[in-house]
């Protein structure tokens, strides 16, 4: 019952919620990012990070550091936090935490299939996969020739199986079909997650509906922009949009017929939350759109912490950590390549 969750939430979720709020206190602040931006080389970055929660993960790395090592070790911290919370969680929180991984599983599947298509080595691809999205039979994905085989050999045993009903075709896998597969899977995953949160009810469903609706709308805009000028037909494009969110259904009708960025902007400016995002960019410019969306997402994720006794804090923490790792990757790359003037282009500050 909405409003009375405070009475019973702490039976199963009190300890874990307190732990995740403790982790949130360890996220890097603007002051930390400013220090990192002043660094001259990767060893300086390692020294600054040793004062944060990442310290124990980076301290044993030998001196010629690579940016990929920094990102890998920071991701390891994220995975450790996640696994610690998952093993202590009970239903329905454990199902909720599992849902957070499915997005990464989808990305890993697409990574391996694309890599195999381009004749890359399976071991090399496995090392690039996100650790949160690993599952047992992932290496067998390299063997499949088309989607039906992909499903029958590997994916039917994974949690992604129910998401495949809409994209089982016998067509061969090529770049276009793989992207369509990725987006169809992600659409099914978001809808499933949305329904699950509605079933939990209460504050969780209210906050997660907002966060997932933003995610769905953001993906709709990105799909539209990326498919301008390709062979994707309007009906196919419309099939990739999720059936919830602020833009559903009228915004999707309009986005499906857009042919360039200014038309997209025209559609989005009718919705007040997105008008604020698009008004920050001048006409014809789309590079800043990603950063504007990330900033809006971070703002909403930070707001999720304002309420107590719900599960959305776990989702918000995972997403904020991922954003932080993206920031660290960008800063490390800029420092390693001596392009410090471009650091502020892509760092999203959180607190």
């Amino acid at each position, binding site marked *: 019952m909405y409003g009375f969750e*405070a*009475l019973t939430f*702490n*039976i199963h979720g*009190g*300890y*874990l*919620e*307190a*732990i995740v*709020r*403790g*982790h949130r*206190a*360890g996220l890097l602040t603007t002051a930390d990012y400013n220090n990192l931006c002043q660094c001259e080389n990767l060893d300086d970055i390692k020294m600054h990070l040793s004062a944060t929660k990442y310290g124990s993960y980076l301290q044993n790395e030998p001196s010629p550091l690579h940016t990929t090592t920094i990102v890998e070790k920071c991701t390891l911290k994220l995975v450790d936090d996640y696994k610690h919370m998952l093993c202590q969680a009970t239903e329905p929180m454990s199902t909720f935490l599992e849902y957070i991984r499915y997005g990464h599983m989808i990305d890993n599947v697409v990574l391996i299939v694309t890599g195999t298509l381009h004749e890359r080595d399976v071991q090399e691809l496995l090392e690039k996969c996100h650790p949160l999205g690993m599952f047992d039979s992932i290496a067998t994905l390299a063997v499949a020739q088309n989607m039906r085989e992909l499903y029958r050999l590997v994916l039917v045993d994974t949690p992604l199986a129910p998401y495949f009903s809409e994209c089982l075709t016998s067509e061969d896998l090529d770049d276009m079909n793989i992207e369509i597969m990725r987006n169809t899977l992600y659409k099914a995953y978001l809808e499933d997650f949305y329904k699950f949160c509605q079933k939990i009810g209460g504050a969780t469903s209210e906050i997660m509906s907002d966060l997932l609706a933003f995610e769905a709308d953001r993906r709709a805009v990105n799909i539209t922009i990326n498919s301008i000028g390709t062979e994707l037909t309007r009906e196919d494009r419309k099939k990739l949009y999720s059936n919830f969110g602020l833009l559903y259904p009228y915004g999707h009708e309009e986005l499906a017929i857009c042919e360039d960025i200014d038309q997209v902007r025209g559609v989005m400016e009718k919705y007040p939350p997105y008008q604020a995002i698009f008004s920050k960019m001048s006409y014809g410019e789309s590079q800043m759109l990603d950063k504007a969306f990330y900033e809006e997402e971070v703002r909403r994720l930070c707001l999720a912490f304002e309420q*107590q006794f719900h599960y959305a804090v776990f989702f918000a923490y995972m997403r904020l950590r991922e954003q932080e790792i993206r920031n660290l990757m960008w800063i490390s790359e800029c420092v390693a390549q001596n392009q410090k003037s471009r650091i502020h282009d892509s760092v999203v500050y959180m607190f």
Partner: protein
Amino acid sequence: MSGAAAIHASSWAAALVRISPYTFSAIGIAISIGVSVLGAAWGIYITGSSLIGAAIEAPRITSKNLISVIFCEAVAIYGVIVAIILQTKLESVPSSKMYDPESLRAGYAIFASGIIVGFANLVCGLCVGIIGSSCALSDAQNSTLFVKILVIEIFGSALGLFGVIVGIIMSAQATWPTK
């Protein structure tokens, strides 16, 4: 009057009136201690689970935040005190006078006192527990918030005290008929 009782001999009013006042008194005493302890325990687990989790990243909060647990515990102590007071109010009356209005009144007074104290302490314990949980989490992030949230908790714990005061006043007039 027993005449009035005879007129309603086959109605619900008669059934209620013929329940022994000692039953009502005993149930009142049981509720006063039982439900108070329920409230205290509920509050303690709500605040305790958050306190333990938050203390992992911020160990400094443990000693100060035990105050929340102490406020919840006080609620249980109120229940015990009132139960002891109420049981001293129980006196024997001869069976001829057991269903007199005087003794019914005494039985109902003890029952009501028990309910008042029990349920006031239940909600007080819940209130203090939930605030204590938020207090622990906020203190872990920003230690200046602790004292301010403690003020809210103090107001919350006053609710149990109101219940105890009214309950004791109710039970003070539980006088059984003299022999």
